[in-house]
């Protein structure tokens, strides 16, 4: 087989191995080895993805298709599109998934429903991998839904906890809202172009590029509609991405999704699923015109700012990280909005590593706190950072890795996060130079958000790892150990990846990263020299100051920075009151309408159905009587005839040989006589 033929097969293998693991773990394999099955299948997937990545990166696209079904005149194909973006994503997703699988071996050990866990996790990995290599938008939509569904299953994994059940419903419903937008966009594209194949639409000389926009009309091969629809299409995709990547206004599900196991949060809600929104936008980016792009940028920066303010005052370690994710995703959206897709993907990749690492370390801390809490029989929230402290003495390795990740999040030089954040910030300044005043606000807001980020993550680190442990109890310190080996290994590996050398030889200038070099679609912005030196310097200087300030506040003084119970504090703590607003404005009316329709349904419609049903029963009883008497009668007659004839025939076998011979001779002679001597035959 040619090189060219192996690669699609290998990539298909990468997608299907976790699916196989899903089937096996859910239905066939006993609990004890379900873990090994899942881990080995994701390992195979990872190796396959490495192979695909090294073959595809910068070596040309591979696009193969296969006919799937035909509806009337239209025929749909399924296929794989392997270009730089897909190769990078497939490597990223499977790599992170592999590490999380290993982590989960230790984290979820002893859980009763472990086989369901592995099954759902494998299903998720399979759908995510499929999403990144799918070649047409319909297929991406299908996998998009599957990813959302697996996320639903995983968030609500501990189904006996009410909070988890509520959270997964919320996540699923919000995702469905976003999907409406996605579907609308798909329909518009289809009606204009007759195909949803990405290469055909957006590739070189693709159908989309051939369509013209003149005098308020969108002229395409199949149709001729108003320009407004292009905007609607763009917004549709954006809406879908907003839901999946937890941006304003569909961001409230992500903090609640922290009810799931931390390993799940790290994989899905930090590194992969939420990145699917960004991925989609990059895939369909040619659609967006300037209006949509501006909207994306504005939403992105607004969300980034909002989320970071909320993160400042949260006390649950996972919620801080969740809002941090929302904030960083806002940065990615901003990058897309300013036209620098490469920077968005770059930040997606680096964010995947350090955010996943942050979550895994948080998981280790929670795991140990939970264990200590059980031993002490203490009644406190083991995820509350106000109950932690001084853990760096007891969990040194976790401390070191978490610090490295935090530095990457802040964007301190020598980390990968520095490179990607700089890419976004600097290009946002360059973008804003030629625009209006309002646009110029955006980069400054980005810088402010960056400093807020530094603050909240520093607060987290210092509260958790410095100072004295705040849970009361005898010899509490001795109860907390370093995390088990399987949890540490992924953390260490990710820490290495969060440093700069994975991405670029030059730790200070982002332009040399190999990742950025190959991305098309980065709008050529005028490179303004001064920005490239001033901005990083300014940013990092203040960042260091802020870290020092936080250190003083939290490690030394151990005092709450913000006064609690002020209006501003509560506003931030409750997530700018979005949840309450949604509840009043949307959830209650909908519930009311559904109760009303239910009563109508029961009284009126069921009544009608009942009458029809009763008349049906009457008819069928008549038919049954006819069936029994007449038709069964015939059938019974036939049966009895057959039986009687059979009885007659077998009576010839009397067992006596001379009888046999006699009958035989008789029949032969009769045949002969009748044949030759009777005039009839």
């Amino acid at each position, binding site marked *: 087989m040619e090189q060219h033929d192996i690669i699609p097969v290998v990539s298909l293998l990468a997608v299907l191995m976790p699916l196989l693991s899903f089937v096996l773990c859910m239905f066939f394999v006993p609990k004890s080895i379900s873990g090994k099955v899942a881990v080995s299948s994701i390992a195979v997937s990872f190796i396959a993805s490495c192979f695909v990545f090294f073959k595809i990166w910068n070596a040309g696209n591979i696009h193969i298709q296969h006919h799937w079904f035909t509806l009337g005149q239209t025929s749909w194909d399924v296929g794989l599109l392997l270009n730089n973006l897909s190769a990078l994503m497939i490597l990223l997703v499977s790599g992170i998934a592999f590490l999380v699988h290993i982590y989960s071996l230790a984290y979820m050990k002893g859980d009763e429903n472990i086989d369901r866990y592995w099954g759902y996790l494998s299903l998720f990995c399979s759908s995510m991998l499929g999403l990144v290599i799918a070649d047409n938008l319909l297929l991406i939509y299908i996998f998009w839904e599957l990813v959302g569904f697996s996320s639903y299953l995983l968030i609500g994994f501990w189904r006996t906890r009410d909070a988890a059940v509520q959270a997964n419903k919320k996540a699923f419903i919000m995702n469905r809202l976003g999907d409406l937008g996605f579907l609308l966009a798909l329909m518009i594209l289809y009606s204009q172009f007759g195909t949803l194949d990405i290469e055909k639409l957006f590739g070189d000389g693709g159908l989309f590029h051939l369509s013209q926009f003149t005098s308020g009309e969108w002229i395409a091969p199949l149709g001729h509609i108003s320009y407004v629809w292009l905007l609607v299409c763009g917004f549709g995709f954006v809406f879908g991405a907003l839901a999946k990547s937890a941006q304003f206004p569909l961001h409230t599900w992500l903090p609640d999704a922290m009810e799931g196991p931390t390993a799940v949060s790290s994989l899905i809600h930090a590194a992969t699923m939420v990145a699917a929104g960004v991925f989609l936008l990059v895939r369909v980016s040619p659609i967006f015109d300037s209006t949509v792009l501006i909207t994306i940028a504005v939403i992105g920066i607004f969300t980034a700012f909002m989320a970071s303010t909320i993160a400042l005052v949260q006390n649950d370690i996972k919620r801080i990280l969740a809002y941090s994710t929302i904030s960083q995703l806002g940065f990615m959206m901003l990058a897309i909005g300013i036209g620098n897709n490469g920077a968005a993907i770059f930040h997606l990749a680096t964010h995947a590593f350090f955010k996943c690492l942050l979550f895994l370390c948080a998981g280790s801390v929670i795991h140990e706190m939970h264990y200590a809490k059980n031993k002490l029989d203490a009644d406190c929230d083991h995820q509350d950072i106000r109950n932690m402290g001084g853990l760096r003495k007891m969990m040194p390795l976790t401390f070191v890795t978490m610090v490295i990740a935090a530095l990457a999040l802040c964007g301190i030089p020598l980390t990968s996060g520095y490179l990607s954040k700089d890419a976004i910030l600097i290009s946002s300044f360059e973008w804003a130079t030629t625009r209006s005043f309002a646009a110029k606000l955006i980069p400054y807001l980005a810088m402010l958000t960056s400093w807020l980020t530094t603050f909240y993550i520093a607060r987290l680190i210092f509260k958790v790892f410095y100072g004295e442990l705040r849970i009361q109890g005898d010899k509490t310190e001795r109860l907390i150990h370093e995390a088990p080996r399987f949890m540490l290994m992924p953390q260490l590996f990710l820490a290495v990846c969060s440093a700069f050398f994975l991405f670029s030889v030059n730790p200070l200038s982002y332009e040399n990263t190999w990742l950025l070099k190959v991305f098309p679609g980065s709008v050529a912005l005028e490179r303004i020299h001064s920005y490239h030196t001033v901005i990083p310097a300014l940013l990092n200087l203040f960042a260091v100051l802020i870290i020092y300030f936080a250190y003083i506040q939290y490690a030394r003084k151990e005092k709450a920075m913000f006064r609690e119970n002020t209006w501003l504090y509560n506003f931030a703590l409750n997530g700018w009151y979005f949840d309450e607003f949604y509840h009043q404005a949307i959830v209650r009316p909908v519930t009311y309408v559904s109760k009303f329709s239910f009563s109508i349904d029961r009284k009126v419609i069921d009544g009608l159905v009942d009458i029809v049903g009763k008349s049906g029963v009457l008819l069928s009883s008549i038919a049954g009587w006819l069936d029994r008497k007449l038709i069964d009668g015939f059938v019974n007659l036939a049966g009895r005839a*057959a*039986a009687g*004839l*059979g*009885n007659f*025939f*077998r009576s*010839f*076998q009397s*067992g006596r*040989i001379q009888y*046999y*011979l006699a*009958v*035989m001779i008789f*029949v*032969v002679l009769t*045949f*002969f006589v009748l*044949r*030759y*001597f009777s005039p009839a035959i």
Partner: protein
Amino acid sequence: MDDYSLYISDSLNGTIAGIRGIYPEIGLVVSFLLVIFSELFFVKRIKQLPFWITLISLAVVFTLTIKQFAIGDSLTLYSGMIVLQPASVYFKLLFLLSAILFIVFVRNNQQMQQHKKGTGDLYAVLIAVLLGMNCMAMSANLLMVYLSIETVSIGSYIMVGYISGDGKQAEASIKYALFGAACSAIMLYGISLIYSFTGTLNLNADLLEGLNAIPVWSAGLAITLFLVGLGFKMSFVPLHFWSPDVYEGAPTPVTAFLTTGSKIAGFALLWRVLEAFNSSGNAISVYDFQGLIGIVAIVTMLFGNLAAIWQDNIKRMLAYSSIGHTGFLMMALVANTAGFKSLIFYLFIYLLTNVAAFMLVDKVEQESGSVNISTYLGLGKSMPLTFISLLIVLISLTGLPPTSGFVAKFLVFGSALESYKSSGSSLILWMMITGAVTTVVSLFYYFKVPLYAYLRKTESILPREKFDVKLVISLVLTFLVLIFGIFPQVITDLIN
């Protein structure tokens, strides 16, 4: 003597030239001798030596037979005694397959292996029977017909009575022997009449011309008597009376062989005779074979399938069902050359399913001791693989998709339909109708087995299933039955 000297040298030359056409048969003779030797001298040291020698030599003969496909069109050898055609090679391959399955079956059958005389002689007799069958498929002379039929028959009597472990087996063998001897004698008389009427024994145009020259009922009598012997081998009505008793009483491997190999040999011979009678250039119609086959097929189908409804002994039921299959197959003979493909395919599938069915029945009998269907209660759960396999085999025998039994029946119906369209004879129409009706009837008695095995419960202790060679082979055969049902082209393409 001088008159004959020419003939002598001619016939010597002919004999030597003809050797190249009978390599498989020579192989069989050599292996026959080898088996007898090994049975006499070496069996004490190596217990299963005759089995292995037989198996290996059958494999060798198989390859020799396959080489015979290269012969091309028909080749008359030995001054018109035998004629080698591609059609006969197909039949020979089927006989070999049946024989190989038979010896493996014997090797794994408890009763056979416990026989104090050993099974070496049985293998030798088998090889002789196989030789006879080969000659049946190739015969072009009435003497050859008689000799080969007799070889097969006498060998079969010995095989049936080989163990004679109980009264039933002895009774089966004597019924077979007496009935068979009587039918052969009648057939011989018929041949002698033909010879007296025409002066030649070769199945060629001379014979037909000769028969044409005499009053039609004389020829009819002679040929009818001749067909009695043939019908005995194929067991169609009215010459089927021996088969339920003999199949029930004989040891199961022998029954499997008789229902498949022996019956296929009968079909091969009938095919040859029909070809000889129909192939003469000016289509002399001496005897209305179509009519005869039609009536016989209808009656046989009815008889076999209807009588099987009442059977409780599974071997007896399978015996009646094979009579039914014979009747059905005769439809394929009606259609002449188009029917050949469907005939071979059906025979092949019939061979596989029947041998599998008998192997499974034997396994059940060995492990649970039940020979009656009504004692199969609850065995479906305790012997799952066996009964699943048996279920699939029975489905194939009924002729339901997706098994190959369905495809085979379908092909036969197809060829009968074609000949109906070209000849318009209503007899063919009735044959097809009867075929369809009896297929429905057969569903009933075949499905009694899974009914009792799966849906009825019993309180007694149920045996566990042993995973032995018989089960493996039955599973392989079942698998093949399913595969050929989905991909019949694999086989139908091999048949020209």
